């Protein structure tokens, strides 16, 4: 089962745009792509969700190419409080049939002044 992979870590400065990519080669045909944010000692929290092309909400944008084998979370003008671990969540096709909810490997984002 191919992993749903993300870069381990990213560093940025306040005010910059940050793009975090998730690779999900085996994404199930009908499944959505969801991104979560996790602060230390807390559970993950929903950020954004999409199926294809581009989705934008008040905190982030999500870009999904036509083949849906990857997705990119874009955080505009990050601040110190955006320092967290970011996860993608997708349904992955199983060889024997069916899907499995799979979190990406997680990306630790560190924002500095």
């Amino acid at each position, binding site marked *: 089962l191919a992993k749903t992979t993300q870069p381990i870590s990213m560093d940025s400065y306040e005010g910059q745009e940050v793009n975090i990519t998730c690779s999900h080669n085996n994404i199930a045909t009908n499944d959505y792509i969801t991104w979560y944010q996790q602060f230390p*000692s807390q*559970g*993950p929290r*929903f950020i954004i*969700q999409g199926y294809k092309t581009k989705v934008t909400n008040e905190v982030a944008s999500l870009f999904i190419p036509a083949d849906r084998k990857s997705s990119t979370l874009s955080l505009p003008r990050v601040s110190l409080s955006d320092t967290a671990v970011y*996860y993608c969540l997708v349904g992955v096709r199983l060889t024997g049939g069916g899907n499995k*909810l799979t*979190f990406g490997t*997680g990306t630790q984002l560190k924002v500095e002044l």
Partner: protein
Amino acid sequence: DTAVSQTPKYLVTQMGNDKSIKCEQNLGHDTMYWYKQDSKKFLKIMFSYNNKELIINETVPNRFSPKSPDKAHLNLHINSLELGDSAVYFCASSQDLWEQETQYFGPGTRLLVL
């Protein structure tokens, strides 16, 4: 009011013991989950219940047994604890079982097996 709550927050115990973690959600959701997060921060689904019925049961040792007395509660009982069970366990809930449903996570239970 906390939407998804878990007890205890911390759990330190000896190998071989049996322990339980409780989870409650007050969101009126039909689906609840248990996840395990290891020391490398990898999150893996363990179980999912929909309307008190077991839906997802990943490759988890038989020592782990979930129980859902009602839609608002999903407890996790672990028998004969092992060192490798040390992790953070998260409970979550969603309106329904569909993958596009937003999941709401509890604060986690930090289990340390000595």
